[in-house]
């Protein structure tokens, strides 16, 4: 509708959406164009890139390009998974606290501040360290999601409580709308644009956090992710031996994802925020 048209006029928005779609396109449709094989060895370890294998092989001799595509898929998957959980939990608590007010608001606020101060990173280490068996992608996603919801709750709560005082809520209440109808029809639509922007940041945090944990060996078990690629590059001293293809492409991909998400967020901010604050 009108908003989308305004957005499409913004060069930064078009650029960031394009970049993001490119990465998603690469991740989802990559296998159709390039045979993905992350098990069989196609050459000697750390073979230099050649015509056939554009980015050479990793420390076990597996083709790097297929590793990257598979890694991209799982990193995006974890990021999305964590983003959805964090945003959903955060929005629900935020709207509930902002809208209900009173002691419930203070309680949720206290819990949020508490988790905000205790760093996500520490919680992740402790949980992952104790789960020795299969740390699947979903599990990692859940762990990240459950430790980054605090930021969403805090910002959504601020928006929801500022909305509560507006007259259209009073009018809706006088129309006989119950709490649920009020939240769904009169609070959420105003927050939707804001929640979507928060979701984008959460996905970016999820992707970056997954890479961080994998770097210290607590990443997903027996699957490939960008973090795992970087970790194996570090553990096998790929840097000292000048094997750039072991870590540079993974870093570039990681940065592209996070960068496109951040630019998307800032480009939407110029369109959405003034309207929301009106």
């Amino acid at each position: 509708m009108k908003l989308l048209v305004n957005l499409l006029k913004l060069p930064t928005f078009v650029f960031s959406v394009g970049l993001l779609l490119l990465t998603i396109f690469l991740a989802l449709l990559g296998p159709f164009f390039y045979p993905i094989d992350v098990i069989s060895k196609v050459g000697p370890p750390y073979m230099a890139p050649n015509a056939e294998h554009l980015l050479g092989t990793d420390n076990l001799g597996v083709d790097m390009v297929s590793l990257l595509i598979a890694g991209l898929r799982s990193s995006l998957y974890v990021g999305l998974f964590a983003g959805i959980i964090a945003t959903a939990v955060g929005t629900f608590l935020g709207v509930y606290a902002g809208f209900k007010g009173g002691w419930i608001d203070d309680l949720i606020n206290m819990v949020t501040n508490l988790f905000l101060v205790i760093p996500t990173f520490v919680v992740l280490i402790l949980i992952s360290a104790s789960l020795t068996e299969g740390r699947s992608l979903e599990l990692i996603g859940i762990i990240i999601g459950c430790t980054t919801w605090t930021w969403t709750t805090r910002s959504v709560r601020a928006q929801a409580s500022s909305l509560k005082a507006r007259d259209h809520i009073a009018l809706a209440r006088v129309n006989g709308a119950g709490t649920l109808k009020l939240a769904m029809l009169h609070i959420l639509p105003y927050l939707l644009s804001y929640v979507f922007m928060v979701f984008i940041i959460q996905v970016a945090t999820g992707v970056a956090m997954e890479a961080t944990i994998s770097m210290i060996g607590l990443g997903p078990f027996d699957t490939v992710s960008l973090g795992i690629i970087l970790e194996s590059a570090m553990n096998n001293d790929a840097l000292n031996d000048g094997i750039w293809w072991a870590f540079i492409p993974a870093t570039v991909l990681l940065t592209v994802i996070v960068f496109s998400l951040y630019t998307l967020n800032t480009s939407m901010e110029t369109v959405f925020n003034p309207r929301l604050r009106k």
Partner: protein
Amino acid sequence: MQHKTNIFAAAGITRIFGHGKKSVKAIDAVSFTIEDEEIVSIVGGSGCGKSVLAKMMLGLIKPTAGEFLYSGREIKNLREHWREVQPVFQDPFSCFNQFFTIRSQLESSFCIFKQKPSRREVKERVDGALLAVNIKPNEIEGKYPFELSGGQMQRMLLARIFALRPKVLIADEPTSMVDACVRANILEYLMKLKQELKMTIIFITHDIGLAYYVSDRIFIMHKGQIVEQGSPDTVAFRPQSGHTLQLLEDIPDIHKEWIKR
């Protein structure tokens, strides 16, 4: 003259906000009665407690002391109360949800009734209400709130009252955010509501000129107390309380001397 039933009856009601040293007495031992089918204006400067009184009549806040009755009994069930008492707010721009069309919001107002009338009857009543505030229904067809001007939005709020036909209307400063030339329209509609639909109207304003023109009785409020009650002529020309006199003098009237230069 058939005996008028008391719509609102307040006996010594007080409302205090905050507690201890920081407490503020918004309403201070106020008593009044409001009968059926009359327009009562509550006039006072900012912070005199008139909006608090309006919220109390709507049942949104309870008095901390004294007894406040709506047609003889305490306000208990808000949904039932709102079937008979409806508000019009001050700021037309923030009154409507920007994500739904005007018509759908007007029609959803009927959810307040126990059984919502049939779709056809709702549509008829809304169209009738729009004509009552001289807006042609097709003018706002499929339109969203941000596509209308302030004056039109204020009329939408009144159209909602024409459609719902409550017994009592609480109009909290409906004219303060609107330009002078549209202000008179709003007052006309209030009088129309009273004459045609036998509605009781509480008109809250800080402009005694408007109150004088539109109301049957005027309450003057100052710092949480009703300092004067009476017909427009007695309040405007034979005021007893010093505060009313002060209020009348402070209004820049074109015929009278305002400030000695």
